[in-house]
């Protein structure tokens, strides 16, 4: 049996350890569109081509200028005058021959005029350095076609990202600090039987000190419950008393001094973990209450059929609890005791998963569909998530703007929110003057006045009573719509990772506006 890996396995080894083979497969089936091959865009694509997305298509009508070559790694000195989509595709393509690179020498506005359905074929569309009007048009087309849209911008020392997606389902969120699923507050029958099989008082010394802490806690919880009216320790005082009970369980030697029993130390340390209530977390409850879960049809995506099946399970076999996760943390114990305990959880998890599958099957039969498992390789009920990032038209609408969010952030006039307001203001400026402020030195001073007017009219239009300091108006004129490479590189990394999350349905994307302040090296996420 050859375990030597294929070249692709070797090449992608370091990332496969993060999103697995199924995540990689999703990447390799993706086709991403980039609108505008400015430095921010090519940096994003670099970070998607390297890990092996299936294909990319760049849409750009610009001709390469000397300025472009200065800040874009994927243009060389002989690119000047060429179409920018074409020139950058060449140098991006050669990063990874597994990836298929394409380009369209066209202005996105023209494409929107003549063939808006062009954009329907993509897994994701990313637009960088795009004027507001075109961005809104494109946003509308993509929203109606349910194609995720990621807007990214580098403006001087400010980075901006906006995710627009009707409904994004996360099958594996991989939380950093997930609570263990031990069920000690409501042990399932097989767990209870397993615990009962232990007789702590009459065990040999070696066995006693190599019994998993989970068993120890379970045993002593039984004792506690008998003496406390079947109530688990609820508050700090009771938990301390419970810890003391455990402490007293440590075997003593002939002189009466406690032996060293590290498993008991672990038990005492883990009392809080052990007493975490086994309930359905809020984010999953929200999924259960969603309309898409309630109404399963033949159009329902696999994710929602799964959620419904889990809800059915919770209401039936689960008796109010989610399917058992089946994994336990490592703990001091001899191999046999640990493995047999682990197997109790694992087997229960398999049974629960089978019950969920049966619910899935019955729904599919009811709506006349066959198989859905292809898209749901690994799932963990507690880690399912859904993210909704509302349409641009709502963010921009006078009646639907998130006024409160903006105003409360601006209680701190140096909040990153002011940078968002400035970006909206320079877009107003562009609308009025067909250029951005301060591009040439001689414009800077006069543009400060003009930009300030744009700020005021923006705030007035939306009824925002906030104070935008003059310093920020000055600063944004200073930027002259520059795109310094290092800020573009930062945004390239940030945006690419969000794109990967969208494509693989693993890890949770941001919702929905991210601002990076490269001056202060701070960032913030807003829901706008």
């Amino acid at each position, binding site marked *: 049996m050859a375990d*030597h890996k294929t*070249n692709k396995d*070797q090449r*992608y*080894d*370091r*990332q*496969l*350890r*993060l999103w697995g083979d199924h995540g990689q497969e999703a990447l390799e089936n993706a086709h991403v569109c980039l609108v505008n091959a400015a430095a921010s865009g090519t*940096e994003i694509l*670099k*970070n998607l081509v390297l*890990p092996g997305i299936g294909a990319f298509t760049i849409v750009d009508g610009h001709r390469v200028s*000397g*300025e472009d*070559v*200065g*800040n*874009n*790694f994927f243009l*060389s*000195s002989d690119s*000047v*005058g060429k179409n920018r989509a074409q020139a950058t595709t060449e140098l991006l393509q050669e990063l990874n021959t597994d990836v298929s690179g394409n380009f369209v020498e066209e202005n996105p506005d023209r494409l929107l005029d003549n063939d808006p359905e062009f954009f329907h074929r993509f897994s994701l569309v990313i637009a960088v350095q795009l004027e507001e009007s075109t961005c809104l048009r494109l946003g509308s087309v993509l929203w109606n076609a349910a194609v995720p849209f990621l807007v990214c911008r580098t403006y*001087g020392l400010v980075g901006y990202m906006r995710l627009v997606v009707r409904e994004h389902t996360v099958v594996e*969120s991989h939380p950093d600090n997930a609570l263990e699923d031990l069920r000690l507050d409501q042990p399932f029958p097989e767990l209870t039987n397993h615990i009962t099989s232990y007789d702590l008082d009459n065990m040999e010394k070696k066995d006693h000190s*190599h019994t998993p802490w989970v068993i120890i806690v379970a045993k002593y919880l039984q004792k506690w419950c008998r003496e406390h009216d079947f109530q688990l320790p609820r508050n700090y005082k009771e938990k301390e008393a419970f810890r003391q009970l455990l402490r007293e369980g440590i075997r003593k030697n002939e002189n009466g001094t406690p032996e060293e029993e590290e498993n008991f130390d672990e038990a005492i340390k883990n009392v809080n973990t052990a007493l975490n209530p086994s309930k359905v977390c809020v984010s999953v409850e929200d999924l259960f209450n969603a309309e898409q879960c309630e109404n399963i049809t033949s159009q329902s995506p696999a994710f929602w059929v799964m959620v419904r099946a889990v809800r059915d399970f919770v209401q039936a076999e689960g008796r109010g609890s989610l399917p058992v996760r089946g994994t336990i943390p490592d703990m001091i*114990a001899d*191999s*046999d005791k640990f*493995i047999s305990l682990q197997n109790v959880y694992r087997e229960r998890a398999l049974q629960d998963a089978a019950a969920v599958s049966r619910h899935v099957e019955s729904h599919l039969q009811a709506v006349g569909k066959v198989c859905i498992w292809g898209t749901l390789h690994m799932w963990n009920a507690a880690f399912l998530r859904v993210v909704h990032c509302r349409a641009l038209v709502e963010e921009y609408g006078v009646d639907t703007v998130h006024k409160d969010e903006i105003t409360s952030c601006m209680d701190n006039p140096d909040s990153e929110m002011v940078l968002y307001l400035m970006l909206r203001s320079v877009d107003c400026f562009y609308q009025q003057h067909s250029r951005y402020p301060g591009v040439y030195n001689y414009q800077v001073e006069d543009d400060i006045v003009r930009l300030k007017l744009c700020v005021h009219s923006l705030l007035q239009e939306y009824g925002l009573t906030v104070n935008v300091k003059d310093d920020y108006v000055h*600063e944004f004129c*200073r*930027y*002259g719509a*520059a795109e*310094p*490479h*290092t*800020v573009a*590189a*930062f*945004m390239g*990394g*940030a945006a*690419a*990772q*969000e794109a*990967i999350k969208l494509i693989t349905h693993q*890890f*949770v994307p*941001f919702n929905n506006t*991210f601002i990076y302040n*490269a*001056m*202060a*090296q*701070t960032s913030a*996420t807003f829901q706008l």
Partner: protein
Amino acid sequence: MALDVGSSGDWDGRWRHVQKFLERSGPFTHPDFEPSEETLQFLLETCKILVIGAGGLGCELLKNLALSGFRHIHVVDMDTIDVSNLNRQFLFRSKDVGHPKAEVAADFINSRVPGCHVVPHFKKIQEFDESFYRQFHIIVCGLDSIIARRWMNGMLLSLLVYDDGVLDPSSIIPLIDGGTEGFKGNARVILPGMTACIDCTLELYPPQINFPMCTIASMPRLPEHCIEYARILQWPKEKPFGDGVALDGDNPEHIHWVFQKSLERAAEFNIIGVTYRLTQGVVKRIIPAVASTNAVIAGTVPSRENTALFAYVPLNNYLVFNDVDGLYTYTFEAERKENCSACSQVPQKLQFPPSAKLQEVLEYLTENASLQMKSPAITATLEGKNKTLYLQTVASIEEKTRPNLCKTLKELGLADGQELAVADVTTPQTVLFKLNFTS
């Protein structure tokens, strides 16, 4: 169409994106900044930067620096290119596998960015001395080892000049250090002698996970335990590829052997989960890595450089980043440690009873969270002569000095208040300790 390249090698508009920041004043620039056309010239012609590491971070750093106007860049890396680098180290291609990273990276940048002159060094950082490091205005690290970082830190501290106890600012070379792991990363600015150094915050680095030997030897529970059993116990015993042949994590045949043995061990204890990928990960201590995190961290560095170049003491000198769930950044001021063994110039103390064995001192040096030495060599002046009490790194000396480990400090002739000099891979300079006897 060929660019009209002027006599400086630049074309029209090349540096326009950068110039706006160097030539225009702004309300948020720090107090010492004067906009001028000369700053760009300084970057292009005079400023000398050293990049340490040409891997995931290094490639990104070289690109960012080159496109920001830095032309005189040196890069040091002792490694050659591996296939598993190609998913993120974008200056390398399949045909480059086996070649030195520093050299291939330099060639790529020099040809893609005209006028940029990257000088490669296919060497270990320890192969250079003060005269090499002194020539740089700034040093940026994209290293994958804490030991190397500490060594670099120590080197820059050794360059500091004090006039009558006052630090001469022109002897400070700012150090910008970045690191990434999966979806997490950090970047920090260190002004040696002024701000927190690497050793000041040693506790921020989580200790490496080593499973207890008794678990590995007799009570395995996880697939990792089975793999460590094969690596640590079976390999030295069975010497499957010959006497003295060390386990090489890059040799597929070696990994295959460990994998098979791990499977056997796992089967014995009914442990599931041993895979080839896990085996390789455990043996090589592989850290998962992607292009995007490196891009983000490297992207923060040049801003920090601008801060450091103008010798402006940053308030928030340490940035952390995590994009597992949304995106999260946080910056804070890492504080100097009053008695830091590297930068405080406060003599380090060792408190032991005279009856303590030298072994205990050795353990303290390696296990203490603030010291974390790897293989310290201890010398003392006895009867006017320099005597090596214990040294591990040379086999013959190790053998000769090993009996000293069982001797007490008193037996070794050490006195209260005596100075012990300790050398270690974590620092280019010897650390002096003062021995205080406790009763």
